[in-house]
C-alpha cells in the first residue's frame, strides 16, 4: 500500500496491534513510519489494502471518537494559548463547560503544563509544543493513542514525563502505538516492536523475547535493529 508517483513508500505491510498493548514502531528516517501512520489516520490513501481501527474502517470519522493522535512536530494554532487550543479540540468531542474544564486541568497536570497554558502557542519551544500536542491527543481520554515521533524535541525531563504518562495509560488498559527511532525509549516502554525499513516490515516481535535473548547473552535491540535494518538498507 502507499504507492505514489512511482515511489513505493510502504509495501506489503501487515500489522495488528492488540488491545492494551504498547507497540513501538521502529525504523530509520525515511523508512515509511509517518506514511503508515498517515494512512492509518486517513490522511493518505493506500493504493491497496485495508486499515481498521477498533474493527471499523479508518475512513469512518466516527471511529476517531476513541482515538488520540499526535502528528510529527505538531503545529497547533499559534494565535491561541494552550488552554484555548485544548478547549477547541475538546469541543470536537462534544466536551462542554465543567467537563471540558476538568479534562483540560487533568491533562495539563499529567503533562506539567499548568503555567504554560496561558502563553500563546506561537511563543512556545518545540518541546513545549510537543507536550501541548500530546495534551490534545489525550483530551478525549482515548482508548487508542497513535503518536508519531512523540519524543522528538523533548528534553530528558520531558521524555521521562512522557514515559510515565504512557505507562499510566497502559495501566488503565489503553492501547498505544508510537513511532520512534530512539531504541532506548522503545526498550523501556513497549510490549511489542515492529521494525520497518524501506517501506517493508522486517520484524514484529514481543519485547519480552528480545529481552530474553539479551539476558541469555544473545542480541539486544540495537543489534537486531542493525541486523534487520542494516541488511535492508
Amino acid at each position, binding site marked *: 500500500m502507499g504507492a*505514489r508517483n512511482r515511489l513505493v513508500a510502504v509495501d506489503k505491510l501487515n500489522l495488528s496491534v492488540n488491545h492494551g498493548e504498547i507497540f513501538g514502531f521502529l525504523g530509520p528516517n525515511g523508512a515509511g513510519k509517518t506514511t503508515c501512520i498517515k494512512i492509518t489516520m486517513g490522511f493518505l490513501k493506500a493504493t491497496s489494502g485495508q486499515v481498521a481501527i477498533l474493527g471499523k474502517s479508518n475512513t469512518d470519522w466516527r471511529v476517531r471518537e476513541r482515538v488520540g493522535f499526535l502528528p510529527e512536530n505538531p503545529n497547533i494554532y499559534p494565535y491561541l494559548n494552550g488552554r484555548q487550543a485544548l478547549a477547541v479540540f475538546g469541543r470536537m468531542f462534544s466536551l462542554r463547560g465543567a467537563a471540558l474544564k476538568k479534562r483540560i486541568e487533568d491533562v495539563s497536570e499529567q503533562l506539567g503544563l499548568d503555567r504554560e497554558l496561558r502563553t500563546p502557542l506561537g511563543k512556545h519551544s518545540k518541546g513545549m509544543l510537543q507536550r501541548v500536542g500530546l495534551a490534545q491527543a489525550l483530551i478525549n481520554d482515548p482508548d487508542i493513542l497513535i503518536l508519531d515521533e512523540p519524543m522528538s524535541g523533548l528534553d530528558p525531563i520531558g521524555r521521562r514525563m512522557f514515559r510515565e504518562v504512557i505507562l499510566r495509560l497502559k495501566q488503565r488498559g489503553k492501547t498505544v502505538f508510537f513511532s520512534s527511532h530512539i531504541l532506548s525509549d522503545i526498550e523501556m516502554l513497549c510490549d511489542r516492536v515492529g521494525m520497518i525499513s524501506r517501506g517493508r516490515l522486517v520484524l514484529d516481535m514481543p519485547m519480552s523475547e528480545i529481552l530474553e535473548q539479551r539476558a541469555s547473552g544473545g542480541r539486544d535491540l540495537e543489534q537486531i535493529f542493525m541486523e534487520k535494518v542494516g541488511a535492508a538498507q
Partner: protein
Amino acid sequence: MTNRIFWIAANTVVELVRDRVMQGLAFVGVFLILCGRLIAEMSVVERARMITDVGAGAVFLTGVLAVLFAGTNLLDREIRERSALCILSKPVSRSAWLAGKVLGLAAVLCVLIMALTAFLVFFLWAETGIVAWKLFAGGVFLYLMLLIVMGYSVLFSTITSQFMALFFGFLVVIIGHMVDDLKIYWASKAAGAQIVTKLFYFVLPDLKLFSAWRVTGEHSIIAPVEALWLVLYCIAFLLITLVLASVILERKEFE
C-alpha cells in the same frame, strides 16, 4: 456535528481577526474612505456623490482583497502548516471542517463589510449632513457577491497552490463583471472564441448583478423580488462551488 462546525467557525473567526493582513486591509478600507474627502475637494462633481463613489469603491476593493486573500488561504494555511492534522484526527469529517471554516470567513466578511459601510455612512453624514441609509443595501449586495467569490476562492485553493488560486480568484472577479458582455462573442466566427466565451458565461457568475450602484445610485431602487432572486443566485453558486470543494477535499491527501 452542527456544534463542531460552529466551534470550527468560531476558531476561524479568532484566526482571521488576529491575522495581520486582515487587520491591515480593514485599515486600508478606512483610509480609502477618508480619501473621498480629498478627491471630492479636487473634483467638480457633487461632493456627496464623490464621497459615496469613492467610499463604495473602497468597501468593494477591501472586500474583494479580503475574500481573495482569506478564501485562498483558509484551508491552504492549515494544510501547509499541518495544524489540519490535529483537527482532522478528531471526529470531524473534512466536509464539516470545510463548512466551519467557510462559515467563520463568511461571518468575518459580514462584519468587515457592514463596519466599513457604517463608517462610510457616518463619514458622509459628517461631511455633508446627508444620511444615506441605502448604502447599507449596497453593502448587503456586495456581501452576497463576496460570498460567491469566496466559494470560488475556496474551490480553487483545493485544486491548486495559493498563488494560482489567488490569480484565478482575481480572474473570476474581473470576468464575472463582464459575463453579460461575453454574449457579443457568441456570434464570432472563430469557434474557439465561441466555446471559451460560452464556457465562461455558463460557469462564471454575473457579478455585475450585485453592483452597489444598482441600489445606491440616485434613481435605482431594487425590487424585492429581484433582491430575493439575487439571494437565491448567490446561494446556488455558493453551494455548487462548496460542494465541489468538499468532494475534492475528501479525496485530498495530506502529505
